[in-house]
């Protein structure tokens, strides 16, 4: 009988720098992997390559001047970032927003959410080498961007929301184009389901990979679709409605496994719900002004506010401290990607390199928001 002590049979661990230039890190992010063969033993996040000091910049800009910066945080869901910021300032100042603007905000925010989820499903398919599945979401996302461009002139960095309303009313032709888009959206989702969701290889690579249970997910501060994929129907739009979300009828899709596959599927399900909200908002869209009467120079009275909205990637929070001047004394942005990425070492350890790529795609980070 061959007697080999276990200590004699060991393999040398190697450290592998994945990034900052790597196709699957979704931007300039570096993961320092400790590998045993191909198995990932330890993950260390190294971030900050895109740090622009936006929180510091905010202290030197007026409240209105800061709006464009927000769209550069999560640049895949600019409208949602705009929304969170202007609502935080409005909460601080007690500004009431006209009805029409509220509805437009909902439409734009949900479109932004759909666009962000589209990027996620597309790039996750691509990270598994499912090249063809990359195209349907991007094709449809283009139409969302066209709608944004139609309204505010920008596609990504929208800066559409204003403190007290929105920058511009929607042009003629917007609603029919939106209607057409919403009619085609289920087709795209079905296309994705046919192309990739039901694919056996895709399932085999995602199911059970990067699994996290609900309790751990909460402890690690996971929010948004990543948390709902663990089975908790927690969505701020329902749990603590901001804006006029309490007027809409929609469901919170949940899945229970908390693995990469569920995190992928839940995005597809959420797109459908967002479409439902948009349809209701379109039907109820009132006439009227899109901008409240706000003073030219905004000087909120001293105080502080923490406003959270349900961003595309999780709970997006703005902590705003005012000292009574026309510039924020302190602005802190709680980016969901930042915290979700913090949970990655826990989520991804134990799989191999390919599983790591799946895990990082499934938590859906955007480095603009991680590094701020």
């Amino acid at each position, binding site marked *: 009988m061959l007697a080999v002590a276990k200590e004699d049979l060991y393999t040398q661990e190697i450290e592998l720098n994945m990034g900052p230039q790597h196709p699957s890190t979704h931007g300039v992010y570096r993961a320092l992997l400790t590998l045993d063969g191909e198995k990932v033993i330890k993950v260390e996040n190294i*971030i900050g390559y895109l740090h622009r000091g936006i929180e510091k910049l905010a202290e030197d800009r007026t409240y209105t001047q800061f709006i464009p910066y927000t769209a550069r945080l999560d640049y895949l869901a600019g409208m949602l970032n705009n929304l969170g910021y202007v609502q935080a300032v409005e909460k601080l100042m007690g500004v009431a927003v006209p009805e029409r603007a509220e509805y437009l905000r909902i439409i734009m925010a949900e479109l932004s959410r759909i666009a962000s989820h589209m990027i996620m499903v597309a790039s996750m398919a691509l990270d598994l080498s499912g090249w063809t599945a990359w195209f349907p979401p991007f094709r449809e996302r283009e139409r969302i961007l066209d709608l944004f461009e139609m309204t505010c002139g920008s596609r990504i960095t929208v800066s559409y929301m204003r403190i007290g309303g929105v920058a511009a009313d929607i042009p003629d032709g917007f609603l029919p184009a939106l209607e057409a888009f919403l009619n085609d959206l289920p087709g795209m989702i079905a296309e994705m389901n046919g192309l990739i969701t039901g694919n056996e290889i895709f399932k085999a690579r995602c199911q059970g990979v990067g699994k996290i249970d609900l309790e751990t997910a909460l402890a690690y*501060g996971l929010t948004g679709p990543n948390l709902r994929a663990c089975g908790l129907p927690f969505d701020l739009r329902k749990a603590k409605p901001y804006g006029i979300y309490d007027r809409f009828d929609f469901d919170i899709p949940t899945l229970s496994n908390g693995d990469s596959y569920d995190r992928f599927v839940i995005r597809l399900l959420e797109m459908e719900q967002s479409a439902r909200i948009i349809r209701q908002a379109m039907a109820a869209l009132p006439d009227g002004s899109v901008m409240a009467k706000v003073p030219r120079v905004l000087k909120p009275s001293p105080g502080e506010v923490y406003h959270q909205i349900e961003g595309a990637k999780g709970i997006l929070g703005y902590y705003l401290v005012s000292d009574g001047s026309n510039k924020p004394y302190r602005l802190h942005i709680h980016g969901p990607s930042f915290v979700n990425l913090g949970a990655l070492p826990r989520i991804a350890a134990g799989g191999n390199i390919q599983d790591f790529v799946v895990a990082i795609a499934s938590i859906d980070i955007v480095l603009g928001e991680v590094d701020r």
Partner: protein
Amino acid sequence: MGNTSDLIQKLQDLFPGLKGEEGGAMPGLVVPADRLTALMQELKEQRGFNFLADVTAVDYPEGDKERIEVVYHLMAVPAATELRVKVSLDRQHPEIASLTGLWPAAEVQEREVYDLMGVIFTGHPNLQRILCPDDFSGHPLRKDFQPAATEGGQ
């Protein structure tokens, strides 16, 4: 929110030195630094504030009470009740116990606060710079921080 004043009352009984802040959009507590861990444990395990929503800090260099305030936002999931907890720290030696033992979510956020504001979190497993480069000096979000470019230009 009627029951928040009850909550604050009860907590004040438990933790002498605790101050309540009502009014505003969110109830808040101000707690002495040495009671923070115990208070957070109480809030998490007995009061249902099981989710650490945010950790940040604000620098107040001026006035007679120069200080750094570390601000914690908690949330009860799934009820979505929010609570703010603040700790005032000595601006020269800001030091506070880390909450990573209660919430692993605190790890990255406390690193960020350390990096940008210079607050030392004792007991943190890996308190290093996270957004700025490792060889960066200074803590950019402090009010008296001078960016290098401005220094050179002056």
